């Protein structure tokens, strides 16, 4: 007992010492001021070399922190006590944060580079007139698959997922809007449907998919696909790009009935301390050469039209990640359906998961 106690005290003491050293080393990370900019971004979602370049060009020191979910990020900002100057929520979260009055309007006189952005990606329903947000990266939801593990099955249509040859092969994503949305899409309904009849129909169609479903999981799917453990996955284009960079056999397709078009966006939270610096950072990131280098590094699709000229033509011509007008016209951006409807989607999703065996 005595030894155990001594051990516990020792561990505690070492932890405290390490904490003190750490605090000392990162001194100033919580201090804010004119020459410090705190960026709060998704993990592995920016080329670190660009942060260095920005520091060099402007003399502003960048503190970079990461999050792994929109909800977690908003929770932290909502609670206050943070001083993030820039963060990158997805489109529905921009709408939610604007509703909660957590964002500052963007001053476009400080962002001349806004003209580089493809007008197709501006003035969308989630943020009319781009009052609070500017698109950072965009992408689609589709099917990642590994032809090596399949007998010639292709996925022009969502209905192909229901093919009997795919028994226990399909991995779905543990997220109500994507999975129910896929069901809606396969029936040619809108992803933003609030019609209970359509939603019920989509859920019963999904239930028929259950013999083919191998699992409903989160980010673990990337590793499973890379290791040839799974053959087919419903996933985001960005995640598919990650899979493809590690396993060359994998392919990605957006079925023709249509799908979701998503965005991650620059926003300036109300708690920002260095508002001028935040604008300077956004303008810097929208610079075509910078945006091209960043898109190259991250592997997602950039909304920066001029940047495409600086990128590998092969990448830009890749219809899987830069779909043509025709495919784009089938894509839909999520609307914020309100908490009540989100509850309905999740209830139906729970029903679907319970039905799976």
């Amino acid at each position: 007992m005595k030894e155990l106690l001594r051990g516990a005290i020792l561990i505690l003491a070492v932890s405290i010492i390490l904490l003190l050293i750490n605090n000392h080393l990162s001194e100033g990370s919580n201090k804010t001021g004119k020459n410090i900019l705190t960026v709060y971004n998704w993990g592995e979602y920016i080329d670190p070399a660009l942060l260095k370049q920005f520091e060099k060009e402007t003399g502003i020191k960048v503190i970079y922190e990461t999050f792994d979910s929109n909800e977690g990020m908003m929770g932290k900002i909502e609670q206050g006590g943070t001083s993030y100057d820039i963060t990158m929520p997805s489109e529905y979260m921009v709408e939610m944060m604007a509703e909660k009055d957590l964002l500052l309007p963007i001053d476009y006189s400080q962002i001349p580079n806004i003209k580089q952005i493809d007008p197709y990606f501006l003035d969308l329903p989630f943020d009319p007139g781009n009052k609070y947000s500017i698109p950072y990266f965009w992408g689609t939801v589709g099917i990642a698959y590994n032809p090596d593990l399949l007998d010639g099955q292709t996925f022009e249509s969502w209905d192909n997922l229901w093919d009997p040859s795919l028994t226990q092969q399909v991995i779905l994503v543990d997220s109500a809007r994507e999975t129910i949305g896929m069901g809606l899409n396969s029936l040619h309904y809108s992803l933003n449907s609030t019609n209970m009849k359509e939603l019920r129909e989509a859920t019963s169609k999904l239930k028929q998919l259950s013999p083919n479903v191998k699992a409903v999981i989160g980010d673990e799917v990337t590793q499973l696909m890379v290791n040839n453990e799974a053959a087919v996955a419903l996933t985001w284009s960005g995640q598919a790009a990650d899979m493809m960079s590690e396993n060359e056999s994998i392919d990605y397709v957006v079925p023709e009935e249509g799908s979701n078009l998503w965005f991650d966006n620059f926003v300036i939270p109300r708690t920002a301390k260095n508002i001028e610096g935040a604008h300077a950072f956004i303008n810097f990131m929208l610079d075509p050469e910078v945006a091209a280098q960043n898109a190259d590094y991250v592997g997602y699709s950039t909304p920066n039209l001029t940047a495409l000229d600086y990128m590998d033509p092969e990448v830009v011509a890749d219809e899987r990640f830069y779909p043509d007008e025709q495919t784009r016209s089938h894509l839909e951006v999520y609307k914020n359906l309100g908490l009540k409807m989100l509850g309905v989607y999740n209830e139906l999703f729970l029903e679907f998961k319970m039905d799976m065996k």
Partner: protein
Amino acid sequence: MHDSNRMELWKMNKGLQRIYMLPYALWIVLFVVAPIALILYYSFFDITGHFTFENYKSFFSSTYLTLTVSSFWYALLITFFALLVSYPTAYLLTKTKHKQLWLLLIIIPSWINLLLKTYAFIGLMGLYGPLNAFLETIGIGKQQILFTDVSFVFVSVYIFIPFMILPIFNALDKLNPALIDASRDLGASSWTTFRRVIWPLTLNGVKSGVQVVFIPALSLFMITRLIAGNKVITLGTAIEQQFLVTQNWGMGSTIAVFLILFMFVVMVITGGSDKGASVHEKNK
């Protein structure tokens, strides 16, 4: 004079006792009473913040009742298998020479973070993992092990075993060996000795073990996703979804209230009838 002095001392002691009680009472109020009260409070509000009984009504829909039944079923399975493995293990442990060392070896895995262990199982049980390689060498061939309810129960049992072994080991260790010798001397077979002497005397250890395993097993959620691929859904999954995704704290709290009620029932069933005490009671 003497008496009044004594009185003073007694009063002082009483005051000291109160001061000693303070941290404990504060702890109980802050970390036990307050959270439960908050959960109860939130369970009466709907998503828009209005007072309602709707959450309780929706709990009695088929969705949540099915969830409750399936949670209970899997918790029961997990507890049963954990007990099946732990009792003989604990028994053998008490017979070994360096029993504290062996016990330590069994406890050590519980020092490793739960999430890490779970991720390790994803690798072990994968199509190209060592388990499937083994099945292939002995001629059974590759099986889909991951994302089944069998793998879910297996991993959960593995995680809970140390918590089941500890109380049973303690009960067995405290058992007076003379009682067993006496039973054998009086002609009881090993089975009768176990059934009439060892088992009743270690029942309290088993009960604590069952409590420690059954109650958390009711609300497991992370393993249901990582190992069972959401093919097993428990009340824990529903609570997580209500709080994190739907942001319906009311419904999430309502499910939590029912979980607390279920746990209370389990505590009463497994903790209530202390055998020794009841015998004592009767003798009075």
